[in-house]
């Protein structure tokens, strides 16, 4: 594997990890914009815009875009989070030029009024779909509660009201602000050459508008909240717990990942043995999420309402024990094995590498080879985890419930 990088005069960053031993190539445009960059009047515009990208550009209609992606057998998609909108595809190497033309084209879409109105209906349906998925709704509600007053608390999908009120002109303005070369990273991983990438970049991206959006980054200061919202037509109580954690630039993030795995991985973790294995709940996990300037531990608990209170106590007990007694050598070793194995297995496919490549550059302008990641994981000690817990106390900050319970 070989790493290459370059910044174009207009500010576009291009990074690539080429590998002749795989069959495919993954290519992705990472645009540094998401729900946190929206003003309240346009809530949901980043995600809606991601949909509109596929509705045509230049002379191409939506049908043309869909057909041409399918012509080359691309496995492609897009996603929007609080901080990033990404457009990506995996293809066979001979189709990279065509796929590149399409991906680079769709992020500067036509944004026609007629398409805007049709797609608005799809967005409203998507909101409706998630409305029937309590596991998702509780995540959105908990994020809003935890990051109240901070841009990270803003909804990705928006509300039926904000989407209905949104105009195509507002979307065009947002696009002109955010989709500028300095705000975009192009990442490529897999079976291709740096020369070919540079040729494509020169052909399709050199004329993009220069500059980049300014994101206001400041740490969130979540205040403790506890809220149980009644939803009587579902079977399970869904609870989301959030605790402040290191932000994306912090060197503590690897320790945070390992700690989260020891507490609540889906197998062989403290929460697994105390809650899942005895059959006390359907789901009980604990993970770490990094953001620009903030971070959070997120724990999701779903199970029968009668057991929710006892399960929350079990979680608190686990967190207290870790805070006072720390973790065992054996736990740390197993977690390192697990993380290392996941890193290696996911790196075998170009799409797995693409996510890591893009993510690392987006937040830290840093290239990390698989080997570097493995060395960092191996170097983590119990002291690192003890220090982490001292700095980021494991106290339930936000507890948000959705389901048959009115309170716990």
């Amino acid at each position, binding site marked *: 594997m070989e790493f290459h990088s370059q910044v174009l005069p207009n500010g576009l960053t291009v990074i690539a990890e080429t590998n002749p*031993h*795989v*069959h*495919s190539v993954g290519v992705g445009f990472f645009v540094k914009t998401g729900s946190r960059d929206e003003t309240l009047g346009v809530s949901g515009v980043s995600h809606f815009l991601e949909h509109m990208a*596929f509705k045509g550009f230049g002379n191409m209609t*939506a*049908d043309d875009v*869909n*057909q041409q*992606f*399918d*012509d*080359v*057998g691309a*496995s492609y998609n897009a996603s929007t989070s609080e901080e990033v909108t990404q457009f990506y595809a995996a*293809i*066979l190497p001979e*189709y990279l030029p065509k796929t590149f033309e399409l991906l680079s084209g769709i992020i500067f879409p036509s944004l026609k009024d007629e398409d805007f109105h*049709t*797609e*608005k*209906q*799809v*967005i409203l*349906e*998507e909101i*409706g*779909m998630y*409305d*029937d*998925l*309590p596991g998702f709704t509780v995540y959105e509600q908990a994020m809003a509660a935890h990051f109240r007053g901070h841009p990270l608390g803003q909804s990705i999908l928006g509300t039926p009201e904000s989407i209905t009120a949104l105009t195509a002109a507002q979307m065009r303005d947002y696009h002109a602000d955010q989709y500028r070369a300095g705000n975009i990273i192009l990442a490529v991983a897999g*079976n291709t050459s740096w020369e070919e990438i540079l040729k494509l970049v020169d052909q399709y991206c050199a004329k993009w508008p220069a500059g980049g959006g300014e994101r206001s980054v400041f740490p969130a200061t979540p205040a403790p909240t506890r809220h149980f919202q009644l939803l009587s*037509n*579902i*079977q*399970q109580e869904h609870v989301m717990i959030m605790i402040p954690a290191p932000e994306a630039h912090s060197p503590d993030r690897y320790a945070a990942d390992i700690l989260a795995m020891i507490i609540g991985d889906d*197998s*062989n973790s403290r929460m*697994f043995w105390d809650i899942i*294995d*005895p*059959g006390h*709940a*359907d*789901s009980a996990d604990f993970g770490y999420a990094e953001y620009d300037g903030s971070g959070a531990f997120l724990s999701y608990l*779903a*199970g*029968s309402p009668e057991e929710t209170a006892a399960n929350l106590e079990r979680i608190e007990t686990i967190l207290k024990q870790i805070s006072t007694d720390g973790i065992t050598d*054996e736990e740390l*070793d*197993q977690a390192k*094995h697990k993380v*290392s*194995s996941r890193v*290696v*297995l996911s790196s*075998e*496919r*170009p799409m797995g590498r693409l996510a890591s490549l893009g993510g690392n550059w987006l937040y830290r302008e840093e290239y990390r080879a698989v080997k570097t990641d493995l060395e960092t994981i191996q170097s983590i000690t119990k002291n690192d985890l003890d220090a982490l817990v001292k700095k980021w106390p494991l106290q339930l900050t936000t507890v948000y419930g959705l389901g048959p319970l009115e309170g716990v």
Partner: protein
Amino acid sequence: MNTSDSIESHTLENGLTVLIQHMPAVQSAAYCLLIPAGSIYDRPGKNGTASITCDMLTRGAGDRDSRQLAIAQDSLGLQSGESVQAKHIKFSGATLKDNLPASLEILADIARRPHFSESQYAPAVSSVKHSLLSIEDEPRQKVMIELKRRCEGLPWGKPTDGSLEDLPNISLDDVKQHFESCFRPEETILGIAGNVDSTKTIETITKLFGDWKPGSEPEVEESPAGPDRDHIALESTQTQIGLAYPSISIIDPEYYTAWAAVSILSGGSSSRLFTEVREKRGLCYAVYATLGSLRDSGHVLCYAGTTVDRAQETLDVMLQVINDLSQNITDEELNRCKAGAKSALIMQQESSSGRASRIARDWFLRDRVVTLDEIHDRLEEITPQKISDYLNSHPADQLTLLTIGPTPLEIK
């Protein structure tokens, strides 16, 4: 780039089939073990026996209790899982290549020497019950499970996760009996893919599974399909639409033609269903159709989720698209299906776990592994006319419709 298939098959004396695909470009190795102990073997009124059995397997096996098993797996960096399918309980795992032999040792313990201890039974039942309750909170998942039950009948339509109402009827003895009668080497398939030495791997497998005693196939419960129109009332934002019609089996000579037809219907974003229902009319976010073909039958299963007041229109458009499918099939549409299939097949070569699972499933459905060249040749034989002829002789009739939501829909 070498995409030729190098798959070896071996049958142990007791009937167990071992398939090995050598993948020199990866650092990993993966297994997929299919044991014929799936939900079709659940006894009448005891749907969920396979599910509980599956959950019990990792709660102590061989010389290790559940915690020791998990620790041993983690120490090997083994990512593994067990799941219930209609015909099989499926065990899958992936790890770095050097750890495969030790991973297979643990697998042999779990598959052959589970403890089934009394103390672990209640937690296992509770765990299965929780996952069934979670399906109740996911109507889009529930509609397809219940649709299969209605369009396929028993045994193949029996829910793989179990039924809430049957759980109280199942005992630890039922679980033990399920294990005794179903876990046997004949019809069991072990697929291995990755950077492995096949001679040594076969030696390891023979040592671990060679002394497994054959048994005989247990009976399955049969019952006819139906009802073909049904509605489950639920106060929800969206109506879930499940629609099915019969198709052909995977060994039918026209299988690839049937596959291409469904691919034109719902293969990619340019497919007809996505274009007409979502792109042109904005009726829903999720709409799809898949071909579910088994050894001796098959169904096309269609799904859409849409808000209540647009649900009838969504169903109407879906039916219109399905009924018009045989008309005006173009070379371009067909070529897009072929391009998608070709890419997917080649990219599968990058994933040891993807290949292990694929070769084992191929063997179950066809008694052999289909090579990439063969699929390529069969796809090349298909023409728009052949698809059109196929659809005219296999129209979408005998429809099964199931909806979940505030109000039922009708087929006009």
